[in-house]
């Protein structure tokens, strides 16, 4: 059962998130939208990571979502929100096919193939534009006539949906299957868990949300080009934020996304430093706190209980 305290915490968090557009400047609202986008990516990546698989292809599915939405608008002039959901849907279908091919293998094969997928898609889209003599970038109308508040509420709803999905998974029987596959795949098979099946389920759910975040991208910015959506830094974001906040935990990716997105936005004045900091965080986190912020707080609490009042 969900405790009363947790319910109250979430109730106030959602109220706060709902009132946010009325409290902050337009620039900070833009950052908040960016934070929510990264929360979706981080939470989705974490769902796959729970099965012990490491995706380096977040940008690939983000891009599939973004380009599906763009092409749907160009070809059929569907309403914006339908385009965005079709982006998520196609990303899910793509991940199903892709997962059937490479999720039978373990660890490194999946990591490398997902990295390759992103690069191949980026190159393919650039080449398709080049061969058909289209300009590389595409303009689309900005959603809700450019009203950032509505865009914020839209991505907030998607973000909440991804968080609720993650929590539902962690409360369900599926989570035990995921954990058993991650800790001992052979053992999991022995007790009747089908690893490939659960890996694919996790991968498809995760890609669906990433695809929606991708579909949102062009309609929020009004412009899209292959290098921007098939950008490896989107995959890096997906990896670093959950790791920083706490892998396999429910709150970790959310905390990681909020802290790191705001940090990197405020550090924008030296661009290359951004990547340097991400790299350093990865190395330091793995060496000194492999359990992330949430995990470190938990082990601190075990070691020094007097530091933490009972109420927490």
């Amino acid at each position, binding site marked *: 059962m969900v405790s009363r305290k947790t319910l109250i915490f979430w109730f106030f968090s959602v109220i706060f998130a709902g009132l946010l557009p009325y409290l902050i400047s337009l620039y900070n609202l833009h950052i908040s939208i960016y934070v929510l986008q990264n929360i979706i990516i981080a939470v989705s990546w974490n769902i796959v*990571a729970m099965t*012990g698989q*490491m995706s380096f292809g977040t940008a690939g599915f983000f891009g599939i979502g973004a380009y599906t939405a763009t092409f749907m608008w160009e070809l059929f002039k569907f309403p914006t929100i339908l385009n965005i959901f079709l982006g998520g849907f196609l990303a899910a279908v793509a991940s199903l096919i892709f997962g059937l*091919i*490479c999720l*039978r*293998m373990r*660890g*490194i*094969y999946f*990591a*490398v*193939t997902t*990295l*390759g*997928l992103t*690069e*191949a898609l*980026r*190159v*393919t889209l*650039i*080449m398709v534009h*080049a*061969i058909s003599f289209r300009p590389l970038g595409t303009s689309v109308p900005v959603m809700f006539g450019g009203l950032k508040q509505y865009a914020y509420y839209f991505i907030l709803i998607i973000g909440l949906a991804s968080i609720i999905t993650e929590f539902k998974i962690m409360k369900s029987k599926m989570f035990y299957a995921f954990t058993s596959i991650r800790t001992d795949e052979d053992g999991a098979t022995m007790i009747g868990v089908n690893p490939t099946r659960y890996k694919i389920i996790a991968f498809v759910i995760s890609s669906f949300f990433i695809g929606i975040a991708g579909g949102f991208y062009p309609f929020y910015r009004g412009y899209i080009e292959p290098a921007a959506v098939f950008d*490896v830094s989107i995959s*890096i974001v997906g*990896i670093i934020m959950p*790791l920083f906040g706490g892998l396999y935990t429910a709150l970790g990716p959310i905390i990681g996304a909020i802290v790191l997105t705001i940090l990197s936005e405020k550090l924008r004045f030296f661009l*290359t*430093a951004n*990547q*340097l900091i*991400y*790299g*350093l*965080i*990865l*190395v330091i*986190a*793995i*060496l000194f706190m*492999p359990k992330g912020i949430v995990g470190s707080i938990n082990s601190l609490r075990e070691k020094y209980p007097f530091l933490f009042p009972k109420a927490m």
Partner: protein
Amino acid sequence: MPDKIFLTVIINGVLIAGVYALVATGLTLVYGVLRVVNFAHGEFVMIGAYLSYYLFLSGIPPVLSLLFAIPALALLGLFLQKFLVNPVLKAPEINQILLTFGLSLVLQSIALILFSPEHVSVRTNYSSLPINIKSISFGAARGVCFFMAFFILLLLHYLIKFTDFGKKLRAIQEDKEAAMLRGINAQNLYYITFAFAASLGGIAGVATSVVMYIYPLLGYAFILKSFCIVILGGLGSITGAMLASLILGVSESIVGFYAPGGSGWGEAVAFILIVIFLVVRPKGIFGSE
């Protein structure tokens, strides 16, 4: 004559495969001995290439800068092995991959800060010299690059097949516990292997500097290709890696010449090869189990 053109395309592919083999061999060696997948391996190539560039600016030809690149990269390898790789040797694979990936990000951004993001190149007097043998033509630079790689690979083959060091390496790769019982110091071998792999990357970088542009993200361009080779050849197999680099080099060359849009398809070729192999033969060309 169309078949002459086809031969030229093939030969050019083979020539570039030499460098691919160098990079991939280092990667597969580290995996075979340490069981660590090193995402930062491409950065060794980038560092080697920049070393060659700056030494060239001060008047040292690329072939001689090998003498500097090998010890420099070996030192870097030792350092990284001691402080970064060694602590995670027993950690889960996911941690190892994330660590080396983070390391590659750090090295890339340091390169971006130290060197300008512009593309530079080593322009030797044979850079744009064509060689024609019976109407099959290729750049002399590609030839030099290939022979550098070929020579080092021969040396490596000798080292692994016929020396005491090579025997120990193969023993560790085959069965770590048994090798340690026979008195082989695994820890020392780990250091030597990682340093060795780093210098192989550095050599590949020097060889590349003759034929390609050098830029801070050069390593990233190499890493996907070398992973493709390592997966094709089977993780840990050196012979497999050499054969797989030929496959990748030649396919890239064919696609670059015949496909509409040409060499722009580069990364896609590597990816498609990986997917085909994962479907047909998941353990690679020489992989068993």
